[in-house]
């Protein structure tokens, strides 16, 4: 009989849990459940993933010990200063844990600081001992789980990582083919969207497994710089393909085959490159070297196009040229990974310029929510007599609150069932089974069976919340120690803390920020258009350019806002109650986000092209027209930041169409008069790229207005329970 992976993983966690408790009890340590917690939360699918998480938890514990002992040393006699210090530390952790790097490290630092401070604060004489005990027991849990995972059915993440790399490379090729077919007028946009969604998922899995493989595979660790470079190139490639797809829609009516005679060669080369990358990743030496494709164009053919078509063509061609450059870089990066081209110096390529700190408003809001929870719990502890759990209530609010506020989309009601079921299950074991045990053999067996059952029943990733709550509450309610006592009151107290915590979480859905999905979505939309309005105001030649550090920082902040807001909005959409808002369908919402994303790409393109040098005579001549276009778009963005729809949508479309015609006429008149010397080829390319970017913004705005106008926003604005 062979055991399933799920059963093997559950056995490993259960065995580590029983051994950790056994050692902690044999050493006569207080709170042996801290070792159990460490085992419960670091157990993941492979040794590498578990080791990564274990390292983050251990380093988080050490930082938390330093922070909490410092707070106790400085403010042992002043509870308000102590609480302010604790708020500062945990606030920073809460903000950082939703960042891009080391999320679990910050989470562990945050909640362990609260735990140690609440244990040691009221008893400063034993603060050092409490902190050391926490470190010892976390270390014990980590050590035991690591040894069990190494010796019992060791699972390296290498196999999974290789499969994820191969899948990602194959999806890139499929996505490229689908987009190219779309450019040739043969593909289906639905297919491209599906492939894009699959690629995003595969990339997320690749990112996660790369970190794990770096830990448990020496080969991967050896070429870590090259892998990081490959990772960053893959991110760039995905963004470039998305931008290319958007520009394809704009150049739809053009006969690309005629305009770019090398199109077929380009397709064969890029497709071949992606295939070679795939082969190289599988360890095969490339059969051929790369060929350069210049992607020259038919000058007469392009001259026969209207100016806006030329602009659309210029943007499309620029994206394809970037694709050529990026696939070459990707090919080289893979060569460095596999050791085919020694000359590459990926470490240098990874060095990025230092970026300024750009605050994320949503992460700040989450931090405020966490601090409100922490402070209300602390004030309740001081001013409400006999609050269930006492200091333990503040600890629980800190530990669970820091995790839950960073998932604001999850409704509080979703936590009721797992929490109630976990407490009932743990309570039954504690009251009816544990008193019957008389030796560690029985207790160890019980720990093994319960841990195995929870891990086995809730093994799927989407059941993570139930698994975590089940294990944490079992360990807490059982409160195993060498001087074991049994009291119904301790179960009732733990159970009573949860309604209070849920009440706090529910109150903070409305205060300090309204976190109902409809209201958050409206706020995100408003912020998106406020940032767009600001950015478009900086694109004029008459507008003052960002000169001071503050202005540069402000522009960078808004660029970051428009780049991140569509993805943030997308995370809220599944939680919009389309049952109550019956006039809004999930497909309409998805369409809205897609149109926002495409507006983001066009805005980014416009900002990039705006910085390129332009022919002076064209600027002077067309400045007034560009200005009126910019003011029109700015006005629309301003309106959209107040209300998500454009009332006069048809009017706006007509206005933009009128502008396009007028500008085309003016450009024709002006360019007809221009001599060869006045307008070089590079000037023409820069000008058409800029014009294409402007046209792109107009079209994306019209598309957005089209998808926003079909949604019944009145229902979104209505007050609701």
């Amino acid at each position: 009989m062979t055991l399933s992976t799920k059963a093997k993983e559950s056995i490993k966690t259960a065995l580590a849990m029983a051994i950790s408790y056994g050692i902690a009890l044999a050493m006569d340590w207080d709170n042996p459940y801290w070792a159990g917690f460490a085992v419960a939360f670091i157990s993941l699918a492979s040794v590498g993933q578990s080791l990564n998480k274990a390292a983050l938890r251990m380093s988080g514990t050490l930082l938390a010990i330093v922070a909490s002992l410092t707070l106790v040393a400085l403010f042992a006699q002043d509870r308000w200063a102590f609480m302010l210090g604790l708020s500062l530390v945990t606030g920073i952790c809460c903000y950082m844990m939703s960042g891009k790097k080391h999320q679990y490290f910050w989470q562990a630092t945050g909640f362990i600081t609260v735990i140690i401070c609440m244990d040691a604060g009221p008893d400063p004489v034993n603060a050092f001992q409490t902190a050391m005990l926490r470190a010892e027991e976390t270390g014990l849990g980590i050590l035991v789980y690591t040894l069990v995972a190494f010796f019992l059915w060791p699972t390296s993440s290498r196999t999974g990582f290789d499969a994820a790399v191969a899948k990602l490379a194959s999806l890139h090729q499929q996505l490229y083919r689908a987009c190219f077919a779309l450019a040739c007028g043969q593909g289906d946009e639905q297919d491209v969207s599906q492939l894009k969604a699959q690629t995003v998922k595969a990339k997320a899995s690749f990112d996660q497994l790369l970190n794990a493989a770096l830990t448990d595979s020496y080969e991967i660790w050896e070429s870590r710089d090259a892998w990081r470079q490959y990772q960053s190139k893959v991110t760039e490639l995905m963004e470039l393909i998305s931008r290319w797809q958007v520009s394809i829609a704009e150049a739809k009516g053009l006969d690309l085959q005629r305009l770019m005679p090398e199109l077929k060669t380009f397709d064969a080369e890029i497709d071949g490159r992606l295939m070679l990358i795939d082969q190289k990743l599988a360890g095969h030496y490339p059969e051929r070297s790369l060929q350069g494709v210049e992607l020259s164009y038919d000058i007469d053919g392009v001259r026969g196009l209207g100016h806006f078509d030329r602009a659309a063509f210029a943007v499309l061609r620029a994206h394809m040229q970037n694709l050529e450059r990026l696939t070459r870089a990707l090919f080289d990066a893979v060569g460095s990974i596999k050791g085919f081209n020694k000359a590459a110096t990926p470490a240098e390529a990874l060095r990025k310029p230092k970026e300024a700190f750009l605050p994320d408003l949503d992460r700040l809001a989450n931090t405020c929510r966490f601090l409100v929870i922490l402070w209300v719990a602390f004030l309740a502890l001081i001013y409400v007599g006999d609050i269930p759990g006492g200091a333990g209530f503040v600890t629980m609010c800190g530990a669970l609150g820091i995790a839950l506020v960073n998932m604001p989309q999850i409704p509080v009601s979703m936590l009721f069932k797992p929490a109630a079921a976990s407490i009932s299950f743990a309570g039954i074991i504690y009251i009816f089974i544990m008193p019957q045990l008389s030796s560690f053999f029985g207790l160890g067996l019980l720990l093994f069976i319960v841990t195995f059952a929870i891990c086995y029943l809730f093994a799927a990733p989407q059941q993570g919340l139930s698994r975590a709550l089940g294990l944490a509450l079992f360990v807490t309610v059982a409160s195993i120690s060498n001087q074991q006592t049994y009291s119904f009151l301790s179960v009732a107290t733990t159970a009573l803390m949860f309604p209070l915590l849920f009440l706090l979480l529910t109150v903070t859905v409305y205060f300090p920020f309204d976190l109902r999905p409809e209201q958050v979505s409206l706020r995100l939309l408003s912020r998106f258009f406020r940032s767009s309005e600001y950015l478009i105001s900086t694109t004029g030649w008459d507008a003052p350019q960002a000169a001071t550090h503050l202005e540069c920082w402000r522009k960078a902040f808004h660029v970051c806002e428009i780049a991140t807001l569509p993805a943030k909005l997308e995370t809220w959409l599944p939680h919009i109650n389309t049952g109550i808002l019956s006039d809004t369908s999930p497909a309409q919402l998805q369409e809205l986000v897609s149109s926002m994303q495409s507006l983001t790409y066009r805005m980014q393109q416009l900002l990039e092209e705006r910085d390129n040098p332009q022919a002076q005579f064209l600027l002077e001549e067309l400045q007034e027209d560009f200005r009126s276009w910019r003011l029109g778009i700015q006005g629309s963005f301003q309106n959209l930041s107040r209300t998500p729809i454009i009332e006069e949508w048809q009017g706006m479309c007509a206005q933009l169409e009128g502008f396009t015609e007028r500008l085309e006429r003016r450009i024709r008149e002006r360019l007809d008069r221009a001599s060869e010397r006045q307008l070089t080829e590079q000037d023409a390319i820069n000008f058409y790229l800029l014009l294409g970017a402007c046209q792109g913004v107009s079209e994306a705005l019209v598309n957005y207005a089209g998808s926003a106008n079909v949604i019944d926003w009145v229902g979104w604005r209505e007050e609701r329970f």
Partner: protein
Amino acid sequence: MPHEFAIGGVYLPPLLIASILGVLATLVTVRLLNRYRLSKYFYYPPLVFVALMVIYSVLFGTFVIRG
């Protein structure tokens, strides 16, 4: 006089039972108000939720629990 509820030897205060019933009744009421889009007539529904909870709890405490 209000009397305590005994469940398997565990005594529960009448206010706790009245509050639980009050919360349940409020949840049903707000669900219906949302369903028929009547909640839009309230200026700030979260406060109305609290008010309904208090009113229901008092009503249950006065007329049902006292017996």
